[in-house]
């Protein structure tokens, strides 16, 4: 009887009898963690490497830095050497980027301009960072009344039209590199201070900080492991993005005649000098400063965007 029933079952389904035995289980396999654990910075770097546009920007900026340092050295011409016989020459083997209306070598001047632009951009960003972190950090950390008044000051300053103030300061102090950087940072730090304050306020109350404290973790470790990764992201991004705006402002000022003065060269002043001759078709005068200033701003912008994506802890995957 039992046998017959067995046979019936087998015609219904082709599953062999000997599969009906308890299974051998491997418990460790079920609990395995697939994802390798990477530190925050490793992970961010890995994601940045994947971003082609950002890597392109980084590559261009490395190239630019290299040429800013060595370009004027490898060139046989100096930045202010006037050669009135060779005025407005198109690019040639002697003058790779051509010459300007005073016969100065555009190649040398372009890399000299790169020095100015990079210096202004990075110096302004660093000073903004320093002031912003101190101001925003104090406001955020102290909170309460201190924070209230510090924010009111920011509110008033925020209403100041940035470039107008910069122009005003440049007019008053007379054109020089120091003036430009001073003028740029006088309102430039506000954005950074706001971001830092926001970050500090937010993170001060984060539950994981509290959690670390209850576990008895040392303060230094809390700062390094928890606070830094979570605050540095937006700050680094803000810094990266404030470089191109400083570079733009310098070029803008130089273009208006308030920036770098002859015989020194800046991309802005070179573009400004090229203005009268574009009608005569001397394209190289405008092209080189225009190209490099645009490429530099482009590179910093895409690098900033890339960093923003890479450093966002919420986007980790």
């Amino acid at each position, binding site marked *: 009887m039992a046998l017959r*029933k*067995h046979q019936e*079952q087998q015609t219904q*389904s082709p*599953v062999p*009898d*000997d*599969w*009906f*035995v*308890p*299974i051998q*289980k491997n418990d460790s396999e*079920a*609990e395995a963690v697939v994802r390798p654990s990477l530190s925050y910075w490793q992970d961010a770097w890995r994601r940045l490497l994947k971003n082609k546009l950002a890597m392109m920007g980084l590559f261009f900026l490395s190239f630019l830095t290299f040429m800013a340092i060595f370009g004027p050295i490898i060139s046989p011409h100096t930045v202010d050497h006037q050669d009135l016989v060779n005025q407005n020459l198109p690019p040639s083997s002697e003058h790779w980027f051509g010459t300007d209306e005073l016969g100065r070598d555009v190649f040398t001047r372009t890399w000299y301009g790169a020095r100015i632009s990079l210096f202004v951009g990075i110096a302004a960003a660093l000073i903004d960072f320093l002031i912003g972190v101190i101001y925003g950090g104090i406001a955020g950390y102290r909170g309460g009344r201190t924070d209230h008044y510090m924010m009111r000051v920011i509110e008033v300053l925020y209403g100041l039209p940035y470039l107008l103030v910069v122009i005003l300061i440049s007019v008053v102090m007379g054109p020089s590199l120091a003036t430009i950087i001073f003028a740029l940072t006088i309102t430039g730090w506000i954005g950074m201070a706001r971001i830092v304050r926001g970050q500090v306020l937010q993170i001060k109350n984060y539950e994981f900080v509290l959690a670390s404290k209850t576990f008895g973790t040392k303060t230094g470790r809390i700062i390094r492991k928890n606070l830094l990764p979570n605050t540095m992201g937006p700050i680094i991004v803000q810094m990266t993005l404030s470089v191109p705006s400083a570079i733009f402002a310098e070029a803008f000022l130089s273009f208006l005649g308030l920036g770098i003065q002859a015989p020194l060269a800046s991309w802005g002043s070179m573009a400004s000098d090229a203005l009268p001759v574009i009608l005569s078709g001397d394209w190289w005068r405008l092209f080189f400063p225009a190209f490099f200033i645009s490429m530099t701003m482009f590179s910093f912008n895409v690098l900033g965007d890339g960093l923003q994506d890479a450093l966002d802890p919420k986007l980790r*995957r």
Partner: protein
Amino acid sequence: MEKVLEVKDLHVSFKTYGGEVKAVRGVTFDLHKGETLAIVGESGCGKSVTSQSIMRLIPEPPGKFDGGSIIFKGKDLTKLRDQEMRKIRGSDISMIFQDPMTALNPTLMVGDQLTEGILQHMKVSREQAKKIAVEMLDLVGIPSPHIRLKQYPHQFSGGMRQRIVIAMALVCQPEVLIADEPTTALDVTIQAQILELFRDIQKKTGVSIILITHDLGVVAQVADRIAVMYAGKIVETGTRREIFYQPQHPYTKGLLNSVPRLDVDGADLVPIGGTPPDLFSPPVGCPFTARCPYAMEVCDRVYPEKTTLSDSHGVDCWLQDERAKKLLASR
């Protein structure tokens, strides 16, 4: 009993960075007129995907419909053009989502959001639509609806917002109402009120409800029938009585044992060990094998066919096989 909706062998997958996730793998069930069918399961089992597939609200890409049919009023919803589907959404079948705090548009007046569905599906004037909206708010228990229509979502509490969301789903008198975790985001006291509201509305309108939830307490209160879902498949279906008193699938039993009970003295809370399988490469056999205390070789190799225990009770499990019963008996 009259079937309003038939889902047959539904397959849905999602493309992700890690590969293709097979979220729903051959789901079949019917919805009868005027009943409440609860689909239960833990998060990630595919119950929400199933419900959104019925409404064709799965974003494509990354989602992908891989086969099966959804028959509503003799039409296969999976084969309708977008335009035809839009006529069904909100008028014949409507849906309520989990979080009432985010389900309403924060910058539009509540009245506007209520009437737009009416104006979309019914040939009525703006005034009539407003009248219907007022009636609906009244039905779901919102006091002074005339004034409330001109307010914005942030002026309502969570429970009130869920009532508005329910009113919004009911304005066109749908035949099927899909409620995806409608009470999960609410306080317990509000939960009870909302569930009471569901029962009340069903009595008044005769709407069929599909209730998606992981909360067996909610299921016990309102469901007529229950479908238990695990790893993209429905592993057991039955009436509320059958599922709660004669659960057959080890997963169903596990679910019931992991719910705190006050009515049974000294009942221990038994969690189900392990985690659901990775649906990037779902197991060939029964997906519960790795966590099942009764697992056999066969479970790992072949997915069990459905065993019908009664008109309403069905289960996908090898333990229903005579040979398994013999094995258990011999132990």
